[in-house]
């Protein structure tokens, strides 16, 4: 059994008949559009780690991330968040959704100031004015843009926009941070900066991070665990370093050696 699929014997409860206690647990998730794009039998994530979802384009990486963020409804299957299945609707679902966030590949900043963008998630959660002010200032400092507080988001460069999107996502301290190709559209200097910030997050916050990337070098630099997705299915999971040195599956090997055309 792959090492990162966790079956720890927890207490069985009405919320969690399966008795799993993983931080995030996907069971039998299936999603089809014209054809089946995702079919994940079981996949578990532990708290506090950085996960990389790697695989060629069209493997279902983004769909998986969107399903976890509850933006896309799977045709079948259940997601357990901290042991509880996520309900299909209602306030309980919103409450769970508020513990996680997704930064899109091309993040959309609202057409207002940088400050208002970073404050958005804090406002939806009813934070006080002083707290919002404090957090926004601190975050702007962290992403190196304290002078851009009142700038209109539309005037930012790609790298700056990506950093603001990341700050906006972590402002409300989510338990789960989902990043879809966070550096795909950036120049090398900005890639380095983003990667540094992501690693810093792990040290300063109690957050589990799942990064979708097609860049195996980035997965190696950033992630503790890797999930190799191919044709909608989980082919292999495990410690990133191990997966890169001794992949178990032929397809994984082909991918990390760059023999897979994508």
């Amino acid at each position, binding site marked *: 059994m792959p090492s990162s699929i966790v079956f720890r014997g927890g207490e069985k409860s009405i919320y969690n008949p399966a008795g799993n206690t993983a931080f995030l647990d996907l069971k039998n998730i299936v999603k089809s559009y014209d054809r089946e794009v995702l079919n994940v039998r079981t996949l578990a994530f532990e708290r506090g780690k950085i996960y990389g979802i790697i695989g060629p384009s069209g493997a279902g990486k983004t769909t998986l991330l969107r399903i976890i*963020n*509850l*933006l896309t409804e799977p045709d079948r299957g259940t997601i357990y968040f901290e042991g509880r299945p996520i309900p299909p609707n209602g306030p309980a679902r*919103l409450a769970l*959704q*508020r513990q996680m*966030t*997704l930064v*899109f590949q091309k*993040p*959309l900043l*609202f*057409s207002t100031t940088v400050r208002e963008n970073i404050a*958005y*998630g804090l406002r*939806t*959660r009813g934070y006080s004015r002083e707290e919002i002010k404090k957090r926004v200032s601190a975050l702007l400092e962290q992403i190196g843009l304290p002078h851009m507080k009142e700038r*209109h988001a539309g005037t930012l460069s790609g790298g700056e926009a990506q950093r603001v999107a990341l700050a*906006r*996502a972590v402002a*409300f301290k989510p338990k789960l941070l989902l990043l879809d190709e966070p550096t795909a559209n950036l120049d090398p200097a900005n890639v380095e900066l983003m990667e540094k910030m992501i690693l810093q997050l792990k040290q300063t916050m109690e957050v589990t991070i799942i990064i979708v990337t097609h860049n195996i070098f980035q997965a190696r630099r950033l992630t503790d665990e890797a999930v190799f997705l191919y044709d909608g299915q989980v082919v292999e999971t495990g410690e990133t370093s191990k997966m890169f040195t001794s992949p178990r599956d032929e397809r994984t090997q082909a991918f990390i050696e760059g023999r897979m055309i994508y």
Partner: protein
Amino acid sequence: MPRLLEGILEAFTLIIRLDPELIKIVFLSLRVSGAAIIISTLLGFPLGTWLGLKPEKKTALVNKVIYTLMGLPPVVAGLVIYMLLSRMGLLGVLGLLYTPVAMIIAQVTLALPIVTGLTMVGVRSRGKEVEETARSLGAGPLLSAWTVVRESRISLLGAVVTGFGRVIAEVGAVMMVGGNIEGHTRVMTTAIVLETRKGNFEYAIGLGLILLSLSFVINAFLYRVQRGGEVHL
């Protein structure tokens, strides 16, 4: 030509003197078209936002209907509303024909498709992205819809202004269902028709100038909004 010049001069004196009849007509126009555009906005914004957030494939037929209605000839709208409100019509018992309410109904028929259609197009351009960004940042359904509206504010503003421009300048529908009754249902456009027929050119020109100025203000505003793309609301 001197007649036109004369007319313009007299029109100006009418406007400057605040001719009570003229003022009354102008205000009724603004009230009728204002009410129509408010109603159309209240209905068209939510409807257009809702449609704009749906995949285009699913709303293909509705789109075509809306686009057709956007070009609905005012006399056709007038005819339909006339038949509905006339004594033999479905809503005849309400006794609304030849009242300002009938004119408002006719103008809503003309403005609603425009507001809905332009809202839909505006929202569609990046509404889904905005909605998902808002949701992933923790906004519930209502707040994310509101965020979409706020982010599309420039196109929404354009929708309202375009709709207003259409109904304030339209004559066919209000003539048919309003009847151009002096002091009751006479608006700028119907008055222009009447005064021109009577040969009271200065009056018609005066109203024409006011209508033209209104149109200028509206379009200048729209132009600025669309060029600058930046309106802080």
